[in-house]
């Protein structure tokens, strides 16, 4: 049984505010986004029978909203968790385990209201294998393979700097983006060095915010009086590997992105050339470069030139990270939800930096430092 197009995203919304929100806890940000997503599709908490979330527990989100769930998914594999929630909901709804699933994200990444203080557990693999060697958190460890990539494929520092430069071009068109002033390659080089070759402007933001999705069967979506067109899940895939960078199969490619992407594209039946719009989780500038190659949009080592040639920029052949991304739009900690939100807006035709004629959007999340990945292929009614 193919699940292609079996379920639809009928409601999608972010928290009312983004950026610095000192008057809301992380759990409240889940709830604020959830209520906005329910309003977006004209449903109420009473219409929801399944809840999925990461960061906060789905039972707490359900209880706060007065939902009595018959399906709970607390999958938490970092920033890609929400892609996995959608994939699991596709299976659960199609199997009749539940009818309408609410997926929520909320994180007080900047203000740290109601958040558990972040630190690796003292006996975690990261604390045993990495922390004793003095990493400065993710900015040291996530991009650790970049120099090998540069040596292997000849990527220049200028090309790496073009990732935030191009994404800022998108952010400039988005009033909700945190950083909107245009930047140049020189600006990236002039920003403080964090973990060479990584400068501050190669790193994502740290913000407060939330996002939520309402999913139901394509059949039920047709019976609802929806204010916005449903966005159909044409394909989904997920995978994972080591949570320590020394355990990864490769330092110049992500196996998890590759396997999740292959699965999602195969299920959707969509060819790369038919993809109108792309989101790739950009915690750091190299991640979209790896992602473009691991998803198969370009060959090995070709992503830097692809970006340099303007293909992912406004007016390009494959608009990517059109909200400005984690680098310029927002990054609460587990950004994957915001990538999905932008894909939904682009397919609906309601994005601030709207690309003409988006029927198919591919959206890839990454968790940890390539420890997990999930990819969704989303489509308009015309793609069914």
């Amino acid at each position, binding site marked *: 049984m193919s699940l292609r197009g079996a379920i639809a995203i009928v409601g999608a919304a972010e928290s009312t505010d983004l950026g610095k929100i000192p008057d809301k806890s992380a759990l409240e940000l889940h709830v604020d986004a959830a209520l906005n997503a329910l309003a977006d599709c004209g449903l109420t908490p009473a219409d929801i029978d399944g809840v999925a979330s990461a960061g906060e527990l789905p039972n707490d989100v359900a209880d706060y909203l007065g939902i009595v769930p018959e399906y709970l998914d607390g999958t938490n594999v970092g920033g890609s968790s929400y892609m996995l929630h959608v994939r699991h909901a596709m299976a659960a709804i199609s199997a009749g385990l539940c009818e309408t699933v609410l997926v929520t994200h909320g994180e007080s990444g900047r203000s740290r209201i109601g958040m558990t203080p972040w630190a690796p557990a003292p006996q975690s693999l990261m604390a045993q294998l*990495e*922390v*004793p*060697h003095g990493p400065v958190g993710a900015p040291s460890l996530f991009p*650790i393979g970049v120099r090998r990539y540069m040596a292997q494929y000849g990527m220049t520092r200028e090309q790496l700097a073009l990732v935030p430069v191009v994404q800022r071009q998108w952010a400039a068109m988005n009033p909700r983006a945190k950083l909107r002033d245009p930047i140049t390659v020189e600006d990236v080089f002039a920003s403080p060095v964090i973990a*060479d070759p990584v400068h501050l402007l190669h790193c994502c933001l740290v913000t407060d915010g939330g996002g939520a999705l309402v999913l139901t069967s394509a059949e039920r979506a047709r019976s609802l009086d929806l204010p916005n067109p449903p966005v159909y899940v044409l394909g989904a895939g997920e995978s994972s590997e080591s949570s320590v960078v020394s355990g990864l199969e490769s330092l110049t490619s992500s196996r998890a992105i590759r396997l999740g992407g292959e699965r999602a594209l195969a299920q959707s039946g969509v060819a790369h050339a038919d993809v109108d719009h792309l989101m790739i989780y950009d915690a750091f500038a190299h991640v979209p470069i790896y992602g473009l190659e691991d998803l198969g949009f370009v060959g090995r080592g070709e992503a830097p030139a692809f970006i340099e040639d303007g293909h992912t920029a406004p007016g390009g052949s494959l608009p990517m990270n059109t909200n400005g991304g984690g680098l310029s739009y927002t990054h609460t900690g587990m950004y994957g939800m915001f990538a999905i939100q932008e894909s939904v807006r682009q397919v609906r035709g309601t994005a601030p930096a709207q690309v003409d004629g988006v029927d198919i959007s591919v959206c890839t999340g990454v968790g940890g430092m390539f420890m997990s990945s999930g990819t969704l292929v989303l489509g308009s009614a015309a793609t069914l």
Partner: protein
Amino acid sequence: MKPVPLATPDTQAWLDRIDAGELTVPRCTACASFFLYPRSSCPRCGARTVELVPAAGTGVLLSFVVNHRAPAGFEAPYALGVVALAEGPHLTGVVRTDRPELLEVDAPVRVAFEERGERRVVCFDLEEATA
């Protein structure tokens, strides 16, 4: 004070050998594959029989960053890298050099140890510097 690893039962023996100044690499006695991080069963075949084999002590620097910010106890700049050991598995560690900006990927390195009180932590020296 720089942090030291807090062992779990499945890493204790490996960390004890490091504290004694010896790097070992876990190997499955059933399928003979080497692996890291240390664990109590083989990630290739699932066998629960694992032995710790003394490492040759050589490797190749796969990739690295040069930290310009440092956690407490560390003094920037310093190179943090991932090394492919001669046995195959990879380890993260500091590459000790006065000129981290001159490091290159694929540089041959040798396993060394940094003393931290009663404990030791694995680090790497450039092969030519120790020759």
